[in-house]
């Protein structure tokens, strides 16, 4: 691929994913040289409808979002979903869990008719996504890795092993030993185990691995005093849209 034209878009999210791109300080100039950034919601005023690669942050939460995402999907040849919100709905999905109608009434009261809101869905509910950069916020080096991989023409390698692997590579004490709980054993790595690195349990912001041992995880959490409801709630934090795994079993 030559110098690809790249658009970076924010749908409904917190802007943190785009900020992580801007936070690439050491590599930002290389990035700007390696690709042609023609659209970047958060950082540049110019915008263009001519791009090959779309990096998309945020989930789809309004009719207006639907229009936007469909347009991006019709233009971009390669779509990369960046961040939990885009990948699987992320934290936004807590609204679905609460009930979209109910949530609207709670926040906007009798003015709720004025508000455009629908059930939260990830990007791939509307358009085809080629690559996923998981995490809330995503690991900025992984964003670089995807861009690099697209440039040299390979499939980006996103780990399908649990966070424990990275956690051990980093030489951490397991937080279970310190009396905390962690979803690391069933959650997908790639974040460099940053929560356990900070002595904080993994919250599964990158979703679960392909074949998680959910039963073992449930037993483990129950052993640490969590009720089924607590376990569900922990798990749902970032995975309420797609994460049926624990619920189903």
């Amino acid at each position, binding site marked *: 691929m030559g110098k690809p034209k790249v658009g970076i878009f924010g749908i409904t999210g*917190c802007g943190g994913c785009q900020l992580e791109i801007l936070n690439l300080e050491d590599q930002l100039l290389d990035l700007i040289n390696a690709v042609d950034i023609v659209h970047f919601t958060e950082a540049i005023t110019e915008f263009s409808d001519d791009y090959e690669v779309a990096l998309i942050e945020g989930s789809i*939460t309004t009719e207006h979002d639907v229009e936007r995402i469909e347009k991006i999907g019709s233009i971009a040849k390669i779509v990369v979903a960046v961040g939990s919100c885009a990948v699987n709905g992320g934290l936004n999905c807590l609204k679905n869990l609460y009930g979209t109608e109910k949530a609207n009434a709670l926040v906007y009261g009798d003015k709720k008719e004025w508000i455009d809101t629908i059930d939260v869905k990830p990007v791939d509910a509307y358009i085809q996504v080629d690559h996923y950069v998981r995490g809330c916020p995503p690991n900025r080096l992984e964003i670089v890795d995807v861009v690099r991989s697209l440039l040299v023409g390979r499939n980006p390698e996103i780990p399908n092993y649990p966070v424990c692997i990275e956690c051990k590579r980093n030489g951490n004490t397991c937080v279970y030993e310190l009396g905390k709980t962690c979803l690391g054993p069933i959650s997908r790595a790639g974040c460099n185990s940053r929560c356990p690195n900070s002595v904080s349990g993994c919250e599964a912001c990158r979703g679960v691995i392909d074949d998680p041992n959910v039963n073992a995880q449930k037993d483990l959490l129950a052993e640490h005093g969590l009720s089924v409801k607590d376990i569900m709630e922990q798990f749902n934090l970032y995975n309420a849209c797609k994460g049926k795994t624990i619920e189903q079993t």
Partner: protein
Amino acid sequence: MADKINIEVSPVSRVEGHGDLVLNIRDKKIEKLIFRIPESPRFFEAMLVGRNWDEPSHITSRICGICSVAHTYASIKATEAAMGIVPSDFIVKLRKLIFHHEIVQSNALHVYFLAAPDFLGVGSVVPLVKTHPEVVDIALRVKKMANDMVRMIGGRAVHPIRTVVGGFTKLPTVEEMLQMKEMLNGAYKDLEISRALLKTLKLPDFERETEYISLSDSEDYAHYDGNIKSTDGWEIGPQDYLNKIKEKVVKHSTGKHCWANRDAFMVGALSRFNNNYDQLSDNAKAYAEELGLKAPCYNTFMNNIAQFVEIVHSVDDSIKLIDELLEEGMDDSKKMVDFEPQAGRGVGAVEAPRGLLIHDYTYNAEGKVEKSNLIIPTNMNYGNIERDMQALVPDIIDQSEDEIRLSCEMMIRAYDPCISCSTHFLNIKLVNR
């Protein structure tokens, strides 16, 4: 020449843009002026219901990636207030230290990447790399310093991990503290150069006095703590915010509009500057003077300068905080205070980079959220943005459509409304009637 102008950004016809400006002018009079935010509403107040006391700070951090530390703190403070948890002096100092650097990184992003391109006459940071590489270099260095500090103390730059109710899950090491100090000392050179550059910029000459609201604290230039104070002469404790600050839903915007003493007020760097000028570091004061910023200042465009002055103050104060913390010793046992979760209501107010931020939670006996209310700075500014625009447009009504449009955009950008709305006002359609 501009007898009949409609300036409008339609949210539906364009893919981009979260914030829209509708401006109709007829016979040199404003017929209609609306600043609207069709940003997708996210319903955080609903998401919080039923959540365990240790989760709201992680959840609300996701309201905004650029000010995630501020949300984390407003949230933690609300929870701590509700449960009667009093963090130690050590913890508060470390919190202030990390908080400074969210302000630095956010202000730097705004001053260098978003406002500077406007004033230097280029579209954005991408062309800026070619035209003013030295500015981009400085911006990246300052941002990196601030982000690295947040990473070292908070565990990551966006949505910090280590700062939780009751303290920290992990403390930075002495070596890291010393490294931070070195980074801070290294920043002065870049700040000097930036000052020289900012001095050459021509900011529009525009004044409109309004109500300026911010936190204010007897101890320091308030970011983390303090009472809510107004230039209109009132001051209240954060828990009484509802007595003064009112919210309403308006039809053209998903962001609620706010008012207090008058029909609108301003929050953000300029408000903090106007309220707390005296508490700035000497160095920051000198920078302000050099750049022609004096308190009280009624020129909205000077908000960018105030942001820069705050960067200087934050660097100075951080060095002081690091020295004090090292003096006390980075002993691991200091990272947390003991507490028991309990029922109650608490309000947490902080100064986010963009201004006053309030979280208000009610917990039940199991330590789960029953009710919450969040008041977000950009929302507070909406009303004031419209008023400013109403004042600005008559002054420039004789200019070309393009010039009017640009001035309006720059005005909005001066507020640094939460970043995703701060760009993309360009595709404004002008329809002459």
